[in-house]
């Protein structure tokens, strides 16, 4: 089972904190990879918060293909960080030749674009790069968005951290929001795209548990939005739904929960907003989830959310102190990074609530 976790902090934290959150949760042969999405970046990316940051891993040829495409589409490179890995023999990692994290400036004509058009440009660029790299088999592109960095790799999480010098806490990578997961897909084929967290137009999400409505979700989402592709993992569906409800339909965030785990009909009937809830249940029946799942997400405005399935088959816990809030599958991870917090303040979200962590670290519990 995937253990998932995230940290939102008042001050920038480094990835080692996320690793310390995740590693105590290891069970058996679970630790088969490492993936994280950093948002609200500090360290070497501090000066480029409004410039889209491209995260990819590729071969030399892949890097050239990406460069050609970006040049041809008038993106101007303004900063780059190429990790210098520690290639100690015996590390468990299936490393790609290059990891590129590069800030671009928008093409010149983007000044006339609305925010929405810019968002679409970034998405379409990422999709085009993904297609090029996929067809040539030369690499993987994970995100292309301002102030967001994604790293994914196959292997032992601890070794992956060693490889990327994440244990050194050298200040290169720091962020106020990190979502992480320490497992490649051990049930199906090992594909880097299948590792959570997933990212789409400012939305980051990881989820655990089997999505039993995967086929229904996938069949429906395929025609909803061009960005809903891949489906290498059934958990991508949760991200697509969050993006669809909040970004495309522009419904208030709380309705995400109504879409994925609708209330039983009998309860809907007793509510004042039954017409709306019934409408949602009708029209988005194919986005329902009905299996055992927990979701952790980050929104474009950097708020963090978590909720779980309607039977609470997959638990999640939220722990906090004055500087930090962490969400985790198991409390042992939070104990590791916040041993001195007031544990009585821990929240074990129930099956009918969404927990929202604001940018001031205020924790809100919304009842569905």
């Amino acid at each position: 089972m995937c253990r998932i976790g995230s940290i939102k902090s008042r001050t920038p934290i480094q990835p080692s904190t996320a690793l310390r959150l995740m590693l105590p949760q290891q069970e058996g042969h679970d630790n088969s990879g490492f993936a994280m999405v950093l948002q609200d970046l500090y360290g070497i990316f501090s000066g480029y918060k409004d410039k889209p940051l491209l995260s990819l891993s590729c071969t030399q040829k892949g890097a050239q293909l990406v460069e050609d495409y970006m040049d041809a589409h008038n993106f101007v490179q303004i900063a780059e960080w190429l990790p210098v890995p520690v290639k100690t023999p015996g590390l468990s990692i299936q490393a790609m030749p290059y990891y590129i994290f590069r800030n671009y400036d928008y093409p010149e004509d983007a000044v006339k674009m609305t925010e929405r058009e810019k968002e679409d440009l970034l998405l379409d660029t990422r999709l085009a790069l993904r297609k090029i790299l996929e067809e040539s088999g030369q690499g993987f592109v994970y995100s292309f968005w301002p102030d967001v960095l994604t790293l994914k790799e196959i292997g032992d999480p601890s070794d992956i951290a060693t490889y990327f010098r994440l244990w050194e806490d050298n200040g290169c990578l720091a962020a106020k929001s990190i979502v992480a997961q320490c497992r490649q897909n051990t049930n199906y084929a090992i594909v880097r795209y299948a590792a959570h967290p997933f990212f789409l137009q400012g939305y980051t999400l990881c989820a655990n548990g089997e999505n039993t409505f995967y086929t229904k979700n996938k069949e429906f989402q395929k025609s909803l939005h061009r960005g809903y592709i891949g489906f290498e993992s059934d958990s991508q569906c949760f991200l697509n739904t969050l993006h669809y409800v909040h970004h495309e339909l522009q419904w208030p965030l709380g309705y995400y929960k109504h879409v994925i785990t609708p209330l039983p009909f009998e309860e809907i009937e007793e509510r004042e907003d039954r017409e709306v809830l019934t409408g949602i249940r009708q029209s988005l029946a194919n986005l329902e989830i009905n299996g055992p799942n927990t979701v952790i997400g980050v929104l474009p405005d950097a708020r963090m959310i978590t909720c779980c399935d309607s039977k609470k088959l997959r638990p999640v816990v939220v722990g906090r102190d004055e500087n930090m809030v962490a969400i985790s599958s198991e409390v042992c991870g939070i104990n590791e990074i916040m041993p001195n917090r007031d544990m009585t303040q821990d929240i074990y979200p129930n099956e009918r609530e969404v927990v929202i962590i604001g940018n001031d670290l205020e924790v809100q519990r919304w009842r569905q």
Partner: protein
Amino acid sequence: MEAVRTQDVGVNDLPWKIEYDRDRCTMCGSCVASCSFQAIKASVERKSITRSEGREPKPLHEHSAIPVIKQVASLTDFCRGCGMCEKVCPNNAIRPVRNPDTRKSLLSRDNGPIKRGGRTNLSAGRTLDHIIVGRISQMTDPSLDSARHTFDIRAPFGRVLSSKELPFAVVDGKLVKKGHTPPVQYIYPLIFSDMSIGALSTRAWEAVALAVGYLNEKCHLPVRMSSGEGGMPVKLLQSEYLKYFIIQIASGHFGWNRIIKAIPYMVTDPAGVLIKIGQGAKPGDGGLLPSAKVAEHIQAIRGVPKATLSSPPNHQGLYSIEESVQKMHLSMNAAFGFRVPVAIKCAASSTSVSVYNNLLRDPYKICGGFFLDGIQGGTGAANEISLDHTGHPVVSKIRDCYLSAVEQGLQGQIPLYGGGGIGMTGNAAADAFKMMCLGASGVFVGKVLIQLLGCVGNEQGRCNACNTGRCPTGICTQDPRLVKRLDIDRGAQKIVDYVLAFDAELKKLMAPIGNSTLPIGRSDALVSTDKAIADKLGIQYVC
């Protein structure tokens, strides 16, 4: 000596032969009285015995006349194998036996095509029996407990809008509905379908209706029943219970005079309106009610004289699907103030997907359901040639329609309901579950209901006499003496018990796949041991 007359009909020409044990028979007459087909009669046989008792042959001739029960050798009053004689005989002295040498089908076309009721007698095998629920939740996605978890077994009936078409606005951080949306009801995914008063005896119809009332009021299962094309009792139309009924309109419009007149007096809306275009048992044919069944009360409800009632094969005046949507759907929607879902029922056909696509693209958004009726559906009366040789299996057609909607991102907008042979082998829950996984929102059943009431007809030529007005179980006849055989309370109870078992069995299938809501479109839950079926339906082939 008797001379052989080649063209004479003999008992051996008939589909069923009576096996009769004279030694056990007391000549009580019960069998003859119970045979509604007059296929047996009391008769006298001459007996001639020659015997010799002494040591020397001294033949003695004895002649006697013995009363017996005898089968009638007739192509009109022939034994249907219903077995009422066997049921009623206190001494087990008589029973019908299937006759493999029958020539009946060949001989009885003297007066034109053979007509009968029932289902197709030729279609071999059922697709659903080659499909298994093969994706069992274990470990990461635990199975549910069918007895302890709660299940939300409700299916949409009505036109569903896409999320972008919902008239929602955000007010103070909440969604608020700002305009009209088509009516959608959430109903139990098992609809009692389309058997008219006329095809059924009023008592049989009442028994089914009684079961519907009980299931809703006492068991809280929102089962809906379609009236069939034969109108409804005015008292029911004007009662609270109308909300459990889907009123059907077919090409004959039978009963609609009364329905329209009752509209101002209705205290509640019906559950829906079903426009019947075609039916699986006899696609391309309209309804048929032989005059033998058009009793006085049927004439009153339908507003017709005593005559054979042949509904036209199609709705007169409708030229195209678009026109049907614009005229018929719209007027039916308007009749009930756009508060009632209006659905359409067609016989499954190789053209079903085109029809469904067309309906999905209707700009008025007023088609609230697409009911597809397969070849294994039953009927009260049809030409045997239609029953046996026309039609289309429903399983792959439901799947085709669903996948066509998926391709366009329109799945679920017009709920699909599949029928025709659901529950044919006794387990409707398994059939329904599989149909839903393939894309149906629910199923409709007819034949299984009357079988629960006591109908003994089957697909091997047993009985199938629904068209004659002489139904031996009192279900498909208007003859008051035959109708008296039916105990409607016991019949209704049988249906209620079956649906309660259906509900428990449905949960028993939902639990292992880990779902508490209906598995509509969860084709990943199914596997097939037949490669061709697996390929056709897009599910896993397993062996």
